[in-house]
């Protein structure tokens, strides 16, 4: 068993080298496929990460009328805090609201001047409510707008943000679907090319295979070198893809980190955490596609 295995592996390696141009074509095609899949996996992961940071930023801001008593606001705050779907409720006082506005308007000199003159000293107090999941925001908003609290509410903001989020989710879904279709397309092309390549190498070795069958080689003994060859396309393609991907991420990481713009998020670090998983996935996809295509091609040709 071990002896035959070694002979067969040797044969697979020799075949790979003997047909190196065909092998190269198959490997390149496989690398492109794997690269596309890896890229889309990364894209999806990044999108999900962005969605998560975005969702963390979504909150309901409840602005209160100036005449609303503080104790009722605190009562509402406590009520909200006791709800399961509420993650966090933050009270923003007149002073806090002013401070925040001032910070945000730092560079607008006119606004600054107005603020210095005492305008905006009565900016509305508010509660900033974060849900455990954005889908609960509607229910929370409805709860807040019930009596007796509805009378003390000046305005409640979450409709605009909701529209924005819906738009974002729509876009990401489109990107996800497109990437899935492209991945499937590339996989199909790779399968065809590898199938053809193996068929061609079998054709060039038709005589040798005939002799092998004549002198009593088992089907497994004849087939395995080809299957190994196919698996090698996958393994080599994984190495190429990983190198390209690493170089690409090195180059693009700063701008992606900027784009996602989430505190404490560094795309390169994020990628490096995922790298072993992505590489393992690539290897699995490559070896399975390569091996399977070869198996099918060999089975058809050896009938």
């Amino acid at each position, binding site marked *: 068993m071990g*002896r*035959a295995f070694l*002979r067969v592996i040797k044969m697979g390696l020799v075949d790979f080298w003997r047909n190196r141009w065909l092998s190269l074509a198959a490997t390149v095609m496989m690398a492109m496929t794997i690269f596309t899949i890896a890229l889309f996996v990364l894209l999806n992961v990044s999108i999900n990460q962005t969605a998560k940071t975005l969702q963390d930023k979504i909150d309901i801001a409840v602005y209160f009328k100036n005449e609303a008593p503080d104790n009722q606001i605190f009562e509402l705050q406590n009520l909200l805090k006791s709800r399961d779907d509420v993650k966090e409720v933050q009270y923003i006082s007149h002073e806090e609201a002013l401070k925040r506005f001032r910070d945000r308007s730092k560079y607008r000199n006119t606004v600054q001047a107005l603020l210095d003159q005492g305008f905006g000293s009565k900016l509305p107090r508010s509660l900033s409510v974060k849900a455990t999941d954005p889908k609960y925001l509607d229910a929370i908003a409805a709860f807040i707008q019930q009596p007796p609290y509805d009378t003390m509410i000046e305005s409640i903001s979450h409709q605009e943000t909701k529209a924005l989020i819906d738009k974002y989710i729509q876009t990401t879904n489109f990107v996800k679907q497109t990437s899935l279709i492209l991945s499937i397309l590339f996989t199909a092309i790779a399968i065809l090319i590898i199938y053809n390549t193996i068929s061609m190498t079998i054709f060039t070795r038709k*005589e*040798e295979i*005939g*002799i*092998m*069958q*004549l*002198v*009593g*080689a*088992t*089907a497994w*003994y004849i087939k395995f070198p080809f299957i190994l060859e196919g698996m090698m396309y996958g393994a080599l393609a994984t190495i190429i893809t990983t190198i390209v991907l690493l170089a690409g991420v090195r180059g693009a990481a700063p701008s992606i980190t900027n784009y996602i713009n989430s505190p404490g998020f560094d795309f390169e670090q994020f990628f490096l955490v995922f790298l072993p998983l992505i590489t393992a996935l690539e290897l699995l996809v490559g070896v399975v596609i390569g091996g399977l295509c070869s198996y099918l091609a060999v089975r058809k040709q050896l009938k």
Partner: protein
Amino acid sequence: MIEFIHVTKKYGDRAAVSDLSFFIDRNEFVTLVGPSGSGKSTLIKLLIAEEKPTKGQIVVAGRDITTLSSRELPYYRRKIGVVFQDYRLLPHKTVYENVAFALEVSNESSTELKDKVPPILELVGLKDKSKSMPDELSGGERQRVSIARALVHEPKLLIADEPTGNLDPINTWEIIDLLFKINKKGTIVVLATHDKEVVDALKKRVITLRDGKIVADQAKGKYIL
């Protein structure tokens, strides 16, 4: 040892061989003759289980080879040796490697290879050429390599399909002598040939085929077509 029992092989509607029945005993040397299209090649293909008959049984050493599964087939092939007109050698392997290849694919160890290959090369008279490549050899030498490869498994049956078809008379006789030698050592030889001179000189059993049927089966036959 080998028995054909009412064997018919059809390709489409045309019968390549029809209702063949004969028996070959151990140690026999049998010559198959017949013009092109007489069914000789089909008979050989049936005997090496490359084709399955449409009807009938072929029993070799007590086993009906028409029922061999594709899994069993390689093991049957190791028990028979086959030689063709076109030698079928691997062009990039030396004489030694070509012979050893038959053992390698049957998963025999390197020690077995070293034990078995040289005596076979000596038997066919190619001991000095074991490192030569096939294209450095004459036709007769190449055919001897292919016979050596067929014999390295020590088969009980050697099938030779037109082994001298590409050879000049001197080489032809060398090959026929070799087949005799092998037969004397106890191997059944089934020789398919066109060569009238060879058949007439052999004075062995001759089975004559025409249009897929046996028209003559003589113990000391002549080429009668």
